[in-house]
Every structure is written in structure tokens, then in C-alpha cells.
């Protein structure tokens, strides 16, 4: 039985089920595009269409700037990261509800499921990053590209892990709460769709500087969003867009992530013991 200690993650048990983890990852990847016409090409079609929409609506109609970076590159950098985040969050926050049949029959460490989902989503993210690189190269070959990478790009693997961790942490909290109170899932899916606009994806963070809304400094509030520092660091490192957000804010994101993951796992473990009775 899971022990009743405060942080009740049986890491040893989780390690014993590592084969299940790899098999789940394999299953997620191989079954994702079976019986579809375009297959993995969908991973590329989706961001291209999204970026096109952003160029029309935000770049064209609204006339929002992009820190001097070509619009496709700027939007693509943001959407790829955000899609990975929201996909992971969506999968993780449905862990209990979509796996109720399986969880109700056999016991295995439930944490294996969200962990494998976050990992298998990396494939899609990788393909979209590939698209980003291709577009980047096209601009670079054409010459006269204002975007250029710098040393902060070395943080990339670390930034991806942070995004995955944040999505996992929020997702674990949400899935634990929504098994009990279903109406919360409506609220959460609504909030996540709004969240994107509170993250500098369709506009540069520099634009917010000095803006005040409802008596609050928007620039500070934006940076309090734990996804913002991660995304901004990537955009600065890869494109040289705007300016580096600062180590302090990145550290804040990391601290937020640790606290969130701790709390998420705690609540998740507490829920897994009784969720079959409430689902």
C-alpha cells in the first residue's frame, strides 16, 4: 500500500514500473497517427495554420509588433512552446477521467500515466521545433535576418523540462480536483484558453512595459506568470528578441515549479486512493 507519509511517492515502486513507462510512451506515439491520412504531418500543419492566423489577426489587423523579428518566426517560437505546454496540461488534467476503466481494474503507480504522456508529447514538440528551425534557416539563407541566436539558447533543454514540469504540476492538481467536482473541469479548460493571452505569445513582453491596468503594473503581473520567464528566455536565446528577463525571474519560475510539483504529486497521491469511489 502507498504509505501515509506526507510525500507519499514511492520512488522505488515507480522505478520498478519503468518498463511500463517506456511502453506507455511507445503506445502513445505509435497509436497517435494510426488510421489518419496525413499521420505525423498533422504536427506541422497545425502550427503553420495557427501562425498564419496570428499573422492575419494580431500582426495584420491589430498591428501588434514583434520586437523587430519576422512575424512567422516570432509567432512560431511562441506557439510551439505553448502547444507543448497546453497539450501536456490537457492530457495530465484528464488522467483520472480518461483512464478510469484501467485504473479501476489494476493497480500500478498512477504517476506513470501522466509522466509518459508528457514524455510522448515531446515527439510532437520536436517535430514542431524542426519546423521552427527550417523556417529560421530559410530566413537566414535569404540574409538580412534581424534574428540571431545567442548563448542563452544553451538553456533550451532546461527550459523544455521546466515547461513539462509546470504542465505536469498544474495538470496533477487539476485532475485531482476534477474527479471530485466535475464542474471545475469546465472552469479550468476555460481558464487555460485565457491563459494563453496572459503569456507573451502573440505580443512581445517589451510591449507591456510601463502599462498599467486597474491600478496594477502589468509588466510585473505578466512576469509573475511562471510560463512567461521560460518562454521569454527561449525567445531571447533563439531569436534575440527583446532583452533577457533576468536570472531572478527564471529562478522564480523554477521555485514556483518545485512548489507546484510537490503539491501536485501530494494531492494526486491522496486522490488516487479514493478516486474510484468518486468517479
Amino acid at each position, binding site marked *: *500500500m*502507498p504509505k*501515509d507519509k506526507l510525500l507519499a511517492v514511492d520512488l522505488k515502486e515507480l522505478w*520498478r*514500473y519503468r*518498463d*511500463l513507462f*517506456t*511502453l*506507455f510512451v*511507445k*503506445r502513445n506515439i*505509435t*497509436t497517435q497517427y*494510426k*488510421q489518419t491520412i496525413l499521420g505525423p504531418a498533422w504536427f506541422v500543419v497545425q502550427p503553420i495554420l495557427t501562425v498564419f492566423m496570428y499573422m492575419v489577426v494580431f500582426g495584420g489587423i491589430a498591428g501588434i509588433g514583434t520586437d523587430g523579428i519576422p512575424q512567422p518566426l516570432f509567432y512560431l517560437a511562441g506557439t510551439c512552446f505553448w502547444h507543448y505546454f497546453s497539450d501536456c496540461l490537457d492530457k495530465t488534467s484528464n488522467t483520472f477521467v480518461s483512464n478510469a476503466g*484501467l*485504473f*479501476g*481494474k*489494476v*493497480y*500500478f503507480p498512477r504517476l506513470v500515466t501522466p509522466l509518459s504522456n508528457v514524455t510522448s508529447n515531446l515527439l510532437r514538440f520536436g517535430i514542431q521545433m524542426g519546423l521552427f528551425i527550417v523556417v529560421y534557416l530559410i530566413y537566414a539563407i535569404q540574409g538580412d535576418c534581424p534574428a540571431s541566436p545567442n548563448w542563452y539558447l544553451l538553456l533550451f533543454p532546461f527550459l523544455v523540462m521546466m515547461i513539462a514540469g509546470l504542465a505536469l504540476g498544474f495538470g496533477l492538481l487539476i485532475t485531482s480536483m476534477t474527479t*471530485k*467536482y*466535475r464542474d471545475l473541469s469546465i472552469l479550468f479548460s476555460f481558464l487555460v484558453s485565457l491563459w494563453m493571452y496572459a503569456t507573451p505569445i502573440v505580443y512581445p513582453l517589451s510591449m507591456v512595459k510601463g502599462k498599467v491596468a486597474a491600478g496594477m503594473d502589468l509588466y510585473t503581473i505578466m512576469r509573475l506568470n511562471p510560463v512567461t520567464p521560460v518562454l521569454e528566455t527561449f525567445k531571447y536565446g533563439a531569436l534575440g528578441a527583446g532583452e533577457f528577463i533576468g536570472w531572478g525571474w527564471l529562478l522564480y519560475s523554477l521555485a514556483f515549479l518545485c512548489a507546484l510539483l510537490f503539491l501536485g504529486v501530494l494531492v494526486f497521491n491522496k486522490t*488516487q*486512493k*479514493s*478516486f*474510484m*469511489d*468518486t*468517479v
Partner: protein
Amino acid sequence: MATAIEFNHVSKQYRLGLVSTRTLSNDLKRWWVTSIMGKEDPFLKIGSTNDRSKKADSEYVWALKDIDFKVERGDVVGIIGKNGAGKSTLLKLLSKVTGPTTGSIKARGRIGSLLEVGTGFHPEMTGRENIYLNGAILGMTKTEISRKLDEIIDFSGCERYIDTPVKRYSSGMTVRLGFAVAAFLEPEILVVDEVLAVGDAEFQKKAIGKMKDVSSGEGRTVLFVSHNMASIRQLCRSGILLENGLVTYTGTATDTVAHYLSGFGDTMCYHADITMEHREFANTTREIELLTVSMTNDGDDYATNQPLDFYVRMYKHKNNIESATLEIMFNNSSCDRLGSYISGPIDLKDVQGEFTVHVRIVDHHLAKGTYSVCFQIGQKDIHSGLKDYDIVHNVLFFSVAYSDQIKKDTIVLWRKNWGSTVFQGDCEVISDRRNRNLV
């Protein structure tokens, strides 16, 4: 010997009524009382024992209450109890699918169950891939599965299709493949729930065979749930009797079965309103639904020469049903089927909605003892095919004694058809109005 399973004052509480949502207000109340005021949880106090026949006075119910027992390694334990006694909940807690409300459970070693065959199969993946996936879900490592892969494929008999997606398999092949994986799991603790495996005789036989192998072999622990007292006695060494969520007896398998059967029909039951609890097969069509069953009784045992009168109130949901056959089955106190009365086709052309059937069994040939009665309504006509509308199990209990007159003159008992399992009687549809005065 070492302990394999240990239940420490385990209780499990369920809430009646609304199952899917616990309310925010109750949770806030609980949180306020336990965390802020530091008092005992108010919702753990209420809740009655799990007697399902009575309407509960509280909306919380104990499916299991204060279960405390140990199982030695290598023991074969039979778990006995009526429907709803808490057997399945006990197994669920043991397999960690759900956690106990209070108390703790310790189980040493891997737990395998022969119920959840093919859990987690993905239709898009091949048989081979699914063997790995299913094995890993059940707790095997990749190397372990690879080592047994050939045996598993061989056992399943699906070699030809092993690299075909499982969605192309027939349902029988899927089950065989799933069972093959489970059979090679080699768990330290094996859980067999015969009650849930009902319906597929071949599978049941295989499961029991596997269970015998496991228990006779390398000192593995087996938990066996069954309604069949004979197989409990035959296969198990010790037994646990569950009644209304409480352990009421533990001992050797033979003693436990004897104890259970001695309690059989302690309370006679001559009238029952049918609920889902009585239905072992929930998947019957219920185009005709059994509502209440009753038998006339003056509060005494039946005499051997006394006719048995049954009133079965039913509801016809489909108007185009022209006739149906009623079967009344009799079990003895060991839950063995003695025989049954089968009516001819009952004409239901003029019947709409609720109706009652009266069956009088004139010469029942039952010896002294306690009996339980099961009812089944269905289509047994060769032309319209076989079909079960509704089946209920062990709903009425009655006992037969030798009446004084026969006691004096035992020679009367010697007559034709004595002990025969053919029950003969008359059957008629009576109007509902008349019936209300009768029952």
C-alpha cells in the same frame, strides 16, 4: 510461516445516493471541523452496517467495517458471503485499486488477478505489442515478458495473428491472449473471483485450473471468492465469512462453509421486492421485469403434503410479447440446485403493464429442510427462440417439516416420484385487483 496479507482494522465507507459528486459544502464542513477545530471527523461517525435489504437511515454506509485478519504465505483462502457482503470491496482494497477509509493493508509480493483479463489492450497495436503492454500493466518487467513471450503466444493459440492489430481479433482471441498473459504472470498472491467470472464456463475452468497449479506449487497465496460451497471446500484450506461488511467467522474452509450454511435461511422470507441486488446477471433484457415475489404462508413450516403457492408480480415493458415462460428454481441449504418448475407458455396477449402470475405446486416432494427459491422469466419456446427477460436468485426462503399426521404414518412418504426433481403444478394469470387482496 510468514504473513502474506495483513488487514489491520480496515474499514471502507461509501456514500449512498449521489455517487459521482461529493459536495463542496460537505468537504468544507469536514475540513473546518477536523483541521480548524481539531475534532473528530463528523462524517465517519454516521453510517450503518451494510444491510442492503433495509433502507439505510444514513446516507453513508460501511461496505466493510473493522476487518482484521492475516493470511499466511502459501494459504488458500476462500471468501464466502452473500451478494453485497463486501467480498468484491475486499478484493478491490487488496489489489490497491481503491484505498481503505481507515486502517491499513499490507500485502507482500505481486498481486495477480484472473478477472481483469486483457486490461489496457490497445486495439491499434499488434498482439505482440499488447502482450508487452498488458504484462507491464500487471507488473511484469520487459525482460520477464521477453523470456516468457514464446510460451504466452503458444498458450494463447494466436501465433498466426500475433503481428496483427488486436482490433482485427475475434473477441474469443482477445480473451485468450489476455488470459495467456495473466496466466504467466506468476504472482505471489493470486485473486480469483468466480462470482465475476460467471458466464464463460471454459474460462472459469481454466481459472480454477490455474489456481490449483499455483496453490499446489511454490507456496503461493490464493484468495478465492465463490458462491459454490463445494469448490470452496475442495480447493481452500481456510475460510473467511463476510456478512454485511463484517468478518463473522474465520477458520478452516470446511468449518467456515458449515457455519455459513447453518445460517442459511435462519430467517424465512416469504415476500420480496426485487432489487438489483437479487440479480446476478445484470445484462438481462428485462422486457418483462420481476417486481415482487411472494408465497402464502401462515407463519409455519410447510408440510410435505402442503401445496406451495407463489405469486409473481411482473411488468411487461414490451407490448408485442405474446407469451412467456416462468421458471421457479429450488436450491437446498448447500446452494445446490435441486430442480425447477417450468410453466408452459403463459398467454400474455391481453396483458398490459403490471400483471401477476399465480403458481401452485401441488406435490413438491421436498424432504425436511430449508430451501431457497430463484425465479426466471423468459422465452423458452422453440419457435420464438430462447431468451431471458429477468432472473433473480435466492429471493425467497422457506422450510419444509413433516407435519404431525405424516409423522405418525411415515409410510405415506413412500410414493411415486419421491425425490424426483420434476416439480409439477398449475399456472394462471390472475387479475391484479384480485391479487392485491391476496398478497
